[in-house]
Every structure is written in structure tokens, then in C-alpha cells.
């Protein structure tokens, strides 16, 4: 493997982790908002 392949792998892993965590946050946030909307007083169950 050439040096650039390791450099490319490092930057790819970085973006996979960063964007993966961002996606996780997006899902957690959406689920939390849905739960809040369901549980909010005055809303039908």
C-alpha cells in the first residue's frame, strides 16, 4: 500500500465516524421530539 492509501484511509475513517455520529444525533433528536410531541399535555395519546 502506498502512503497516500493510508492517508486516504485515515481521512475516510474520520469522515465516516464524524458523519456517522451526526446521523446518530439526528436520529436521537428525532426520536426525542416524537416522544415529546406524544407526551405533551393536551395531545391525544
Amino acid at each position, binding site marked *: 500500500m502506498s502512503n497516500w492509501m*493510508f*492517508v486516504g484511509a*485515515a481521512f475516510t475513517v474520520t469522515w465516516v*465516524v464524524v458523519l456517522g455520529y451526526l446521523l446518530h444525533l439526528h436520529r*436521537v433528536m428525532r426520536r426525542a421530539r416524537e416522544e*415529546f410531541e406524544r407526551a405533551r399535555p393536551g395531545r391525544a395519546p
Partner: protein
Amino acid sequence: MTTAALATKVARPRTRAWTVFGWFAFLFLIASQATAIAISPPDRDMGDLQKIMYVHVPSAWMTMLAPLTVLVFALRYLWKRREQDDLLAASAAEVATTFAGLTLMLGMIWARPTWGVWWTWDARLTSTLVLFLILAGYLALRALVDDRERRAQWSAAVGILGAINVPIVYMSVRWWRTIHQMQSSPATVDPAYVLGLRLNAFAFLFVMVFFIHRRYEAAMIERAAEHAAEAAALGGSST
């Protein structure tokens, strides 16, 4: 303001300022990486492998900074018993775990072509792995304990334990004979690499702050939903 009131307040309006900050953080990260790759010459010994420094070193710094954030809010929780501090500590711990995992993976990618192995039980690598495992234990503990107060107290203790490991990780390259190089900083790297390292350090810092805030916001909304459900159940039982 109580946690319930604050959580309900957080849950309603979408926080535009933080969304803008998030976009800024990610665009800054892209620009920083592009700049660092474009302006840095190949290293005399490592050649272009040196460019891994721009992701590995800032990620390692965040791996040490995030547990210190956990420490601050864990201590504040134990002192003031405010639920918000516990949620902030937990948010920082989740982000710290992410960066610790990333740092370990990037270290392995860098180690293979420079040391000839993916992993070695070097003091720096081992202490970072221990930190990662403590943080993972923190998250597992929170998932397993249902009682809020007990969960907050126990996880604060584990968070403090993780933070105690940070100076050991930082000093490991000085305290023991290691294959890992000394700490990288603008004072120890070649001037040609300082700007790229500084830019990426700030970019990772902005991303980390955004992540912690976003996770905290989600945790507050989860808590608001729980409070609303409890209030609805109490209201229903009284009629």
C-alpha cells in the same frame, strides 16, 4: 429553573443559532483539512504519511478534552445535584467515546506503515485504550441503571475515573519508554505544519462543542418527554 421547565423550553423552539454553528464547524473542518493537505510539504522521514497528523492529533486532543468536560459537569452534579449537569456530563462522555474510538483507529492506520504493526502494547496506546474502555463503561452503566439519581451518582464517579486517566495518557510518552513519539504541539512540530495543525485543532474543537450541545439538547428533550408523560399519568390518575 427546574429540569422539567428547562427541558420543555428546549424542546419547543428549534435552536437556529446552533444549527448555523454546526454548519460553520463542518465547513471549517473541510476547509482546514483541504488547506493542511495543500500547504504541507512531505515530511523528510514519513513523506506524505505526515498528513495523518491533521486528523489523528486533533482527535487525540478532543479525546483528552471531552473527558475533562465530563469531569467538570460530574463534579458540579455531585456538588449542586442539578440534573442538567448530569445530562451535560453524559453528552460529553458519549462524544469523548466517539473521539477516543476515532483516535485509536487513526493511530492504527498511522502505525502500520511507520512501525510495521497495526497495534502494540505501548504505554500511550494502552492508556488510550483504557480511557476508551472506561468511557464505554460509563455509557453501559447509564444504559443499565434505571434510577435517575443513582445513575447520575455512579456515572459521575466513573466520569471522574476516566478524567483521572487523561493526565496518564498525556504523560505516558514521558513516564515510560514508548515507541510513540512525544506530544505533538505547535512548539514541537516543524513550522511548515503548524498552521494546518492549528486549523484542524480548532475545527475538531468546534465539531466537538457542536456534538456535545446537540446531544445535550436531545437528552433534555427526552427528559421533557418523560416529565410530560409522568405529569399526564398523575393527572389521569387523579380524575
